[in-house]
């Protein structure tokens, strides 16, 4: 699903060169749930932005769903991002003046989809996260947990091949965080490939595999992936997420 080989990222200013990633390599198979951990400034977020095609890398090779992304222009990267990747942000990043349904439809608008198809997918995604009753609510009228669920629905609506989550429970209290994590695990059980960046060891422990980054390098990758109950029995036909 995702393969990075010796990826480096250097930020340059007139006087300083910062190596955010140094020869970073990682392979994530389809259906895996990988947690990326590490201290602040270790390069976790840089890894996530490169994985999500939000940023280019300086050296190395990156294959997303067997497609080499090197040299792609902005249009190609945007289309690939829109079709294959779903983002869940720590701060939810819902658009405040759009209601729940409109927020979930945002990525679908950039896919030149018909209004009916867009509505169908958005409603299915919202039903999936249990927010069918809140379609016309605005983000400010929802709790943090509900907002994150809307963000997850937005990420799922396009039927992504890869879900990237950046500290998805970082802004939530314990009860809400638990609910969101359970939802993410459920989505994974249904067949989604998930990469979650977190600094919380407890959350990381719930992933199948942990990748630890220090100073831009992967220093520890768990040898034995932990599988969620039921995942071993999963077949391709079980994947219930909508696909584009």
């Amino acid at each position, binding site marked *: 699903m995702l393969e990075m080989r010796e990826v480096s990222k250097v930020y340059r200013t007139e006087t300083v060169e910062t190596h955010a990633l140094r020869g970073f390599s990682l392979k994530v198979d389809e259906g895996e749930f990988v947690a990326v951990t590490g201290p602040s400034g270790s390069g976790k*977020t840089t890894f*996530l*932005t490169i994985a*999500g095609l*939000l*940023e280019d890398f300086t050296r190395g090779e990156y294959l997303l769903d067997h497609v080499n992304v090197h040299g792609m222009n*902005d*249009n190609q990267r*945007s*289309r690939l*991002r*829109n*079709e294959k990747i779903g*983002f869940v*942000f*720590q*701060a939810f*990043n819902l*658009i405040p*003046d*759009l209601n729940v349904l409109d927020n979930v439809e*945002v*990525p679908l*608008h*950039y*896919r*030149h989809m*018909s*209004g009916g198809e867009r509505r169908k997918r958005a409603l299915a995604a919202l039903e999936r996260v249990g927010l069918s009753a809140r379609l016309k609510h605005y983000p400010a009228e929802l709790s943090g947990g509900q907002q994150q669920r809307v963000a997850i629905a*937005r990420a799922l609506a*396009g039927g992504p091949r890869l879900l990237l989550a*950046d*500290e998805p429970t*970082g802004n939530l209290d314990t009860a809400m965080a638990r609910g969101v994590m359970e939802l993410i695990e459920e989505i994974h059980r249904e067949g989604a490939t998930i990469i979650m960046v977190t600094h919380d060891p407890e959350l990381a422990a719930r992933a199948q595999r942990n990748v630890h980054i220090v100073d831009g390098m992967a220093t520890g990758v768990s040898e034995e992936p932990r599988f969620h109950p039921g995942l071993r029995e999963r077949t391709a036909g079980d994947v219930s997420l909508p696909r584009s």
Partner: protein
Amino acid sequence: MSSQNAYYLQLALRALQRNPVLTTLMVLALAVGIGTCMTTLTVLHVLSGDPLPGRSSDLYYPQIDPRDALSYRPGEEPMGQVTWTDGMNLLEAHRADRQALMTGGSVAVQSTRNGVDPFFEDALYTTAEFFPMFGVPFRYGHAWGAADDSSRARVAVISDALNRRVFGGGDSVGKVLRLNGAAFRVVGVLGDWHPSPHFYDMYVGSYAEPEGVYLPLSTSQDIKMDHNGPVDCWGNGGGGPRPAHTAPCVWLQFWVQLDSPAQVAAYRQFLVNYSAQQKSLGRFQRPPNVRLRSLMQWLSYNQVVPDDVRMQAWLALGFLLVCLVNTVGLLLAKFLRRSGEIGVRRALGASRRAIFMQLLIESGLVGLAGGVLGLLLTLLGLWAVRQQPSDYAKLAHLDPTMLLATFGLALAGSLLAGALPAWRACLIPPALQLKAQ
């Protein structure tokens, strides 16, 4: 409109409603700039317009220099009018497709209708080809003919307004009109004809109203009607309202119609030859000095558009530029303040182009609103111009061209003003949302 553009339009409306104060400021800035600019540009457009579209390119104003050698300076412009002798010589030479000699005047009109007192009316004394050459429309009847010119016939063509005033309207061909006490037979009533500027005789005012009465030039001379306009004499010229035909004075305008470049060249050569011939006869003392300007060149040469109108137009364009720069600043602030939303949209798959289009449509919407308000301000501005005492003030009306230009300018201005902020905003890195957390 594509569904994508409809979506951007929907987002733009929402974004504009989100901050009504800022939106109002931008619309106002643009509207004031547009209103000021379009007011002055409309005045300029009206004043510098072609009085005879489609016909003006074939009309020429010949100039020759019959003055004596006193104070002669080589390269000097020839006289703006012609003497009676030269006018008649050029007219009778028939070297152009059409030609007409004319001068302005004023006549006392006596109406036979009850309750209408005698009044003075502006007149034009001219020759028969004036009407077909300038494409003057007739509501009733027709122009007089060359035979009427030769026989000094007592015939008249009158304007529609005068026809209504004197005869109460209708077909007045054949009716008798008393001018300066003499009886004239009406042969034609003009249709709607308001050439602006008053190009064929600018000596009575560049934006003067068309005359009410048109009489054969020969007849006006026969019954010694007074002439209006300047009389420039040299040597022993006398001047006055009725200069002697032999006096060295210019007081007539002469126009020709030349339908091809070859004819223009030939006519110019004819003017040179005529001047040389007159010099050899002793009438002219200067070397041949001729000009043959087209109608629009003649207007330009006479600087028909007042300098202050041009200056105002430049100042208004400068003001519009200031308003646009202001709008650029406001749009930049507005767009960059939404960098969060833009970053999220980019992360969710919006390309730079998509963001640019979304913001440009938002700018266009501001432009459209600015255009509508600017149009109202333009109408207000033109109304204010019409209250001024200048002779062109009454012409200050918005025509369809300028109406379209108002919206074109508003849209172009706002899109231009929006392009830079939209471009800056679409360069917001999509990684911003992750990095900022």
